């Protein structure tokens, strides 16, 4: 077990180093002088002091190890547009993203698994066929299109839900009002992500469950006279978790892109929107900080998943 841990750990550490190195090298690859290139446009006018400050900052990171050290000490530089440390900005946006992505992921997985298990149980039925058909189609629709359609229907035509943001500017003072406002803003982006992620989970859960249902241990469980829901969930569905976890790891990067697009679409105040604004303003330290943080988080989650995978299926160790 330790050897697997080591091997995976080393791969992820190398990946992290490689990506941090890319982030370190990129500013230097810009044609011409960094500060002039970035501030050369008409959008920002620099005073001589500011220019000197910026030059000093980018001259300081001329050593990869000091750069790495700064990263580890949570000194991620300062955002040009916000005049605030990048790390502070990331930490402020992170809870929103976690709420949206975490909520969407939990819902999409739980619903997908239950629906998949139930569909497999009723295999051959009309409901199952309709489910598989519609979910296969839905699987081909990108988050961008789902989000735009939901926005058009529920926000503009029907006017039921806010078009964007995380909270109204003057949300009611009481906790109830605030919570309701939060949920109203969360609903559309959340629904978009759940609709985008649900079909894959459903199809995978169903396909794995169909295979599991043929196994002899389920015949035994049924022969023991266990109630059907117990056979389905305690005995059979456990085995569906494994492919779902694998899928989650494989799809994680796609999920981040999806969340990025959806956050931008609904102007949700998470990391995606922060990144979008940073890109529009060419606030490069912030872009770099967010992307690095996202990559490092993805690597950590993937490593965690691989370890979890080992727990779920001891044979892989």
């Amino acid at each position, binding site marked *: 077990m330790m050897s697997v841990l080591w091997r995976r750990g080393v*791969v*992820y550490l*190398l*990946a992290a180093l*490689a*990506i941090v190195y*890319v*982030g370190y090298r*990129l*500013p230097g*690859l*810009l044609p011409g002088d960094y500060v002039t290139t970035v501030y050369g446009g008409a959008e920002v006018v620099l005073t001589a002091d500011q220019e000197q400050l910026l030059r000093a900052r980018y001259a300081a990171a001329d050593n990869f190890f000091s750069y790495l050290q700064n990263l580890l000490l949570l000194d991620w530089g300062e955002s040009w547009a916000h005049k605030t440390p990048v790390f502070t900005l990331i930490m402020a946006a992170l809870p929103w993203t976690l709420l949206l992505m975490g909520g969407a992921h939990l819902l999409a997985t739980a619903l997908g698994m239950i629906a998949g298990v139930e569909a497999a149980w009723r295999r051959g039925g009309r409901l199952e066929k309709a489910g598989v058909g519609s979910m*296969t*189609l839905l*699987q*081909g*629709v*990108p988050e*961008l*299109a789902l989000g*735009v*359609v939901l926005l*058009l229907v529920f926000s*503009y035509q029907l006017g039921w839900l806010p*078009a964007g943001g995380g909270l109204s500017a003057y949300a009611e003072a009481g906790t109830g009002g605030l919570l309701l406002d939060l949920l109203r803003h969360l609903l559309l982006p959340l629904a978009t992500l759940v609709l985008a992620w649900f079909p*894959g989970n459903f*199809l*995978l859960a169903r*396909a794995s469950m169909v295979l599991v249902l043929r196994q002899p241990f389920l015949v035994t469980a049924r022969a023991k006279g266990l109630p059907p829901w117990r056979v389905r969930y305690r005995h059979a569905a456990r085995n569906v978790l494994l*492919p779902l976890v694998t*899928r989650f790891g*494989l799809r*994680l*990067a*796609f999920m*981040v*892109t*999806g969340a*990025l*697009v959806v956050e*931008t*679409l609904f102007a949700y105040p998470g990391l995606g929107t922060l*990144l*979008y604004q940073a*890109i*529009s303003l*060419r606030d*490069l330290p912030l*872009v*770099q900080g967010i*992307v690095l943080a*996202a*990559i490092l988080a*993805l*690597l950590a989650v*993937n490593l965690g998943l691989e370890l979890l995978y080992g727990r779920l299926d001891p044979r892989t160790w």
Partner: protein
Amino acid sequence: MHLNLYRRLRGDPWFVLGAGLALALGLLLLASPWLIRHDPYAMDFVPLSAPSAQHWLGVNDGGMDIWAELLTGFGNTLIFGLFTGLLGLGLGVAVGLSCAWFRGLYDLCLMRLADLLLAIPAVLVLILLAAYLRPSAWLLALVLALMAWPTSARVIRAQALTLQERSHLLAARQMGGSSFYLLGRHLLPELFPLYLIGFAALVRMAVFMEASLSFLGLFDPGRKSLGMMVGRALPYYYLEIGWYWLLPPVLLLTMLLLSITLLAVSLEKIFDPRLKEHW
């Protein structure tokens, strides 16, 4: 085998639907030189005018004909996807087959490299590159292909390893066939279905990524694309201008991704159900 394949594909409703959609989109692309009546880059018209006989889908904020923009953007998106798919598949096939054939240290090194690349999320690397360098679509396609080959390489390698032990290949080797001959004559063609599956997956990924990145404004800003059109149309929609501008690119993008997805799903189902969901 190929006749049989054709029969199986024809019997799968997803394949028929996906292929029909792909055919229609392909014809649209081929016919686009005749369908585009205005220069998509020329800012000749009254900005934000509604659809008319002159401008079928209206005019955008820059005074460009939206219909011309739509077809040009569609072509760009599709060509980017196909090019990236071919490049990534080529790399995957080359690495997968050669690793299975030569094994040893070569195999070990390349497979560890594959592990490494699989761990790094390509999208975020592309965002980082695009934010700093504003690279061309070709460079982004190259980077994407360089980061995306490991999935297909692994599948192809695994399949090639089992295939090598089959008796006809052992016999061919015993008879003194050269590596080049054995690889080219036996291994390469027999894995054909895997190439189709891998290609579909790569094209889907590339189109999806191009749409997301150009929506976020991270692709070459001068290059028309469906995602970019959505991103530009959206703020105007908030001002209640131009549903005619927002919906067409969304619909076209959806149809494109839908057809690729359906083709991919049916190919996987027919050739190797075990590969399901590995992308």
